C-alpha cells in the first residue's frame, strides 16, 4: 500500500485551482486515455 499512499498523497496535495489548471491543459487525446483508464477500473462491486 505504500505506493498507493505516496501517489494519493501527491494527488491530494493539489489544490482545486491546481487541479483545474492541469485539466484545462489536457489534450483530447489525454482525456480519451484517462476515460479509457477509468473504464478499465470500473467493476461491478
Amino acid at each position, binding site marked *: 500500500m505504500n505506493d498507493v499512499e505516496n501517489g494519493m498523497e501527491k494527488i491530494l496535495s493539489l489544490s482545486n485551482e491546481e487541479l*483545474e489548471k492541469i485539466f484545462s491543459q489536457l489534450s483530447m487525446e489525454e482525456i480519451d486515455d484517462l476515460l479509457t483508464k477509468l473504464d478499465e477500473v470500473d467493476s461491478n462491486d
Partner: protein
Amino acid sequence: MTNVEFLSIVNRQLDLLKEECERCENWVKSAKNEEKEQAEYALRTVRITRDKLKKLIEYPVYERIKAMSLEEVEKYRIDKLKEAEEELRAYEKQRDMFPDTNWRYLEKRDIYSRYNKLQKTVETYQKGTPEEIKNMWLERRFSSNQLDEIKREINYVSEYGMGASPEFTELYFKDFNTMEKVDGLLSELRYNKYNLKKPFVRASVWTYSYPEGKEKEYYMGNEYQVESARNKILKSEKEYEEIMQMYSSGILKLNRFYNLCSFLKSQINEGKIDENLINNLCKLGDDSTYSAYYNKEAEDLLFRVKRLNKNSKKIIKTYDTKTFIDEDKNVIKSKLEKMYEYLYDENMLAKRNKFDVLGLQITLLPKPFEEVRKYGDVPFDFSYWVNEMNNTFNRYRESFAMAKEVIAKEQEKISIQEERYQDEIDKNIKEIEELVGVKYEKLPYDNSIGVKTPAHHGAIFNVQNVMDSVKYEAQNQADMALADIKGISVAEVRKQRQDELNQMREELLNMTESRDSVKEEQENKNNMIR
C-alpha cells in the same frame, strides 16, 4: 506538478488500486473466521480509496469535455478516425492472412475484440458531428445521477478536505469506535511536528496493518505502535528525499556530459579540435572503470525510481569506447554527433517528465577518471580532461625521448665493442702475416669456417650475430649471382668454393708446417753452431 506527471501518477494509482482490489477480493475468498473480517475491512478501504480517486478525476474531466470547442472536437474526430481506419486496415490485412479456422486463436489473443471495437470507433467518428461526438463523450462516462453525486462529493471535499469526507470518517470512526480519540489522533498527525496536511493516507498505513478490532487496543495500550507508525512515515519521507536527490545528481551528471558533447561538437565544427585528440580520447578511454562506476549508480537510481513509479521507462543506451577504436576520423565524428543528438533528446525528455529517468552508460572518457573515482567527483570541465590528456601524452613523450637516449648509448657501446673486436681480428691477422711472411688476403666469409673469437663481452656476440647474418645473406646473394654467371647450381658454386677454401686452408697449414720446420731447422743449426 505538470500534466504529464499528474497523468502518470493517476494512471499508476488506478492500476495499483485495481491490483489491490483484486488481491483483497482473493483474500476475502480464501480467508476464514477472524481473518475474513480483516480481509473484508481491507477490501472496503481499498474500494473507498479507488472510488474517491475516480470521483476526484471524473468531475474535472467532465468540466474539461464541456469546455471543449467544437473545432477542437472536430480536429480530434478527424485524427482519431484516421488513426482508427489505419489500425483497422492493418487488422483486416492480418485477418486475411489467417484462414477462418484461426479466428478462435485470434479471439484468444483479444485481436478479434479489438477489431470489433475499431469498427465501431470508425463508424462513430465517420457519422458523428462534433456536437454529437461531444455528447457521446459526456454520456460515455457520466449519467445525470452520477454527475450530481460527483458534484456533491467535490463540494464536500473542497470544504472539508479529502480526509474529512463522510464515507471515510464514518468508516474510520466506526472501526476505531472512539470518535474523540481518533479525532485527536488525526489532529496529532495533522498538526504535529511532521506537519501532515492530509491524514487520510498516513492513517491508513497503520490501520491497514493490524487486525480489525485490535486498533483500539493498540492505540490505547501501546504507545510503541504510534511511534512505529511515525517512524514508518519518516522513513518513507526520507527515502523519497533521497531518491529526489539522486535524481537531481543524475540529471546534473547528464548535463555535464551533455556539455562535454556540445563542446566537442562545436570544436569539431569549427575545425579547432586536434585531429589526434579524438582518436586518443577514444583509445585512452578506460571503460571498465567508468562504466562500473556509472552503471552501478544508474542502475541503483533506476531501481529506486522504478519502485517509486513502476511506469517509469528504463532507457539505457550504451556507447562503448571499443566501437570507436580503429575507425577513421569521419566515423568518429559522426558517432559523436549522433551521441550529442541522443543526449539532447533524452535530456529534454528527462526534464519534461521527472519519472522517465534514464540511465546512461557512457564510456568515452580518458583514463584519469580513475583519479576522479579515488578523490571523489570533480566538476565535469572539458579543459580539465584535455589537460589531463595532454599531461599523459607529455609523459609518454618524455618516456619515449628517454628510451631513445638509452638506445643511442647502447648503440655507441656496441660500436666501440665492434671496433675493438675488429682491431683484435686485424691484430691476429697481422701477427700471422708476420710469422708467415705472406700477405693475407681476406677470404670470403663462411659460417662453416667461422672466425675464432676470444671470449668477449656478450654484446660482441650480439654484434657478431648481426654481422654474421648480414654477411651470410651477402654470401648467398654472391653465390646465386655466380651460379647464374657460370650456369651451374648454387650448391655446386658452394661446393667449389668449399673445395677452394679447403685447398687454401691446406696450403696455409703447409705453410705453417714449413714455417715450423724452417724454424726447427734453424734452431737445430743454431744448436749445432753452439
